C-alpha cells in the first residue's frame, strides 16, 4: 500500500545525505515508527526489501523501533485507561497524543 511510497521517501533522503557525505555505501538505517502513524512495520520491511535493490541502500540493514502510543491530558497530565473515551478523567478536556504518530529517520550509518 502506501508503505512503498514511504520507503521511496526514506531512500531518497538517505541518498541525498550519502551524496553530502561522499558515501559509497550505506550500512544501516535506524527509523522510528509510531504505533498510531498508520504504517504497518512488516509491510514497511517488505516494501524496503523490494525497493532497495539497485540503490545505495542495497546492502543497508533497516532497524525499526516501534514507538508505543501515549495519550495524556495537556492540562493536568492524567493518563487515560486503554481503549476508553479520549477525555481527561479529571478535567474532562480532550486528550492529546503525546507520542506514537510519527515516522522518523533517526540515524544513517555509511561508508565513506
Amino acid at each position, binding site marked *: 500500500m502506501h508503505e512503498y511510497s514511504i520507503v521511496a521517501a526514506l531512500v531518497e533522503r538517505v541518498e541525498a545525505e550519502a551524496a553530502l557525505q561522499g558515501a559509497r555505501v550505506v550500512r544501516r538505517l535506524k527509523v522510528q515508527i509510531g504505533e498510531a502513524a498508520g504504517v504497518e512495520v512488516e509491510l514497511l520491511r517488505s516494501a524496503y526489501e523490494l525497493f532497495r535493490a539497485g540503490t545505495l541502500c542495497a546492502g543497508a540493514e533497516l532497524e525499526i523501533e516501534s514507538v508505543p502510543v501515549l495519550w495524556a491530558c495537556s492540562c493536568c497530565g492524567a493518563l487515560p485507561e486503554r481503549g476508553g473515551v479520549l477525555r481527561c478523567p479529571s478535567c474532562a478536556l480532550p486528550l492529546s497524543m503525546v507520542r506514537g504518530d510519527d515516522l522518523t529517520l*533517526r540515524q544513517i550509518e*555509511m561508508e565513506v
Partner: protein
Amino acid sequence: MCDSCGCGDPEIVTVEIQERILAGNARTAAHNREHFAAHGVLAVNLMGSPGSGKTALIEATARAYAARGEAPRIGALSGDLDTDLDGERLRAAGIPALTITTGSACHLDAKLVHQALHRMRDWHDLDILFIENVGNLVCPAVYDLGQTVNVVALSVTEGADKPLKYPVIFRVADAVALTKIDLLPHLPEVDLDQIARALARTMPEPRSFAISARDGSGVPAWIDWLEAKRVKAPVISVRALAEASHGH
C-alpha cells in the same frame, strides 16, 4: 578510505538525522496551506471508504447552499485511481471539478494536489475547495495535503466498528459525516449511539453530522459547521499574499 594509517579500509560515519520521513510531503503541504490561506479558500480533505458517499456529499452541499440563497463558490479536486467519472458528475451539477488520476496510488499527497492547483484555473476564487481523496480508510490518513480541515465520510451501512478498526483516520478527522441515514429504516441493527461511542474512543473531540445527501436531512447543520470554519480562516495581509504567490 581510512586516513590515519592508509590501510584502505572504509571509514564508517554515523549521521544523526532526526527528521520526519515524510518531511518532503510536509513542506509541500505547508506550501499548499499558505496558498489556500492567502486566497481565503477553505480546503476540505474529504476521505472515506469507496462508496461512502463523498461525491454525493459535495453535491448535496452545493444544493443546500443554493436552497438557502447563498452561493459560496464551491469547487472540487477528485482523486481516483482511474476515470473522470466523479469529476464529470460534479461538473454536471455545476461544480467546477478537476480529476487527479493516481494510477496505482491509494492516496493523494501534497505534490499531486499542488500539481492539480496549477492545472485548475481560478481555484483562487473559490470559497470552498473539496479535495475528494481516493476511497480508502488507511493510506490517506498519513498524508497532509495542506487542507484546512479533515472530514471522514462514514455511511451507516459500514458498521459501527469502523472507527475502532481504522483509528488513525478517525483520530485525524475534524468531523465525521455519517452518510446515507435515509437507509436507516432498512438497517434495524444499526445503532447511532453505538457509532457515537466508537467515535468517542478514537476522536478526542468527536464531532459528527448525521446526513442524507438524498433527502437533505442533516445538511444544514453540516453547512453551519463549514461556515464557522470559513469565518475562522486567517485575514490575509498583502505581504503574505505576495510571499505565497512567488512565481506561481
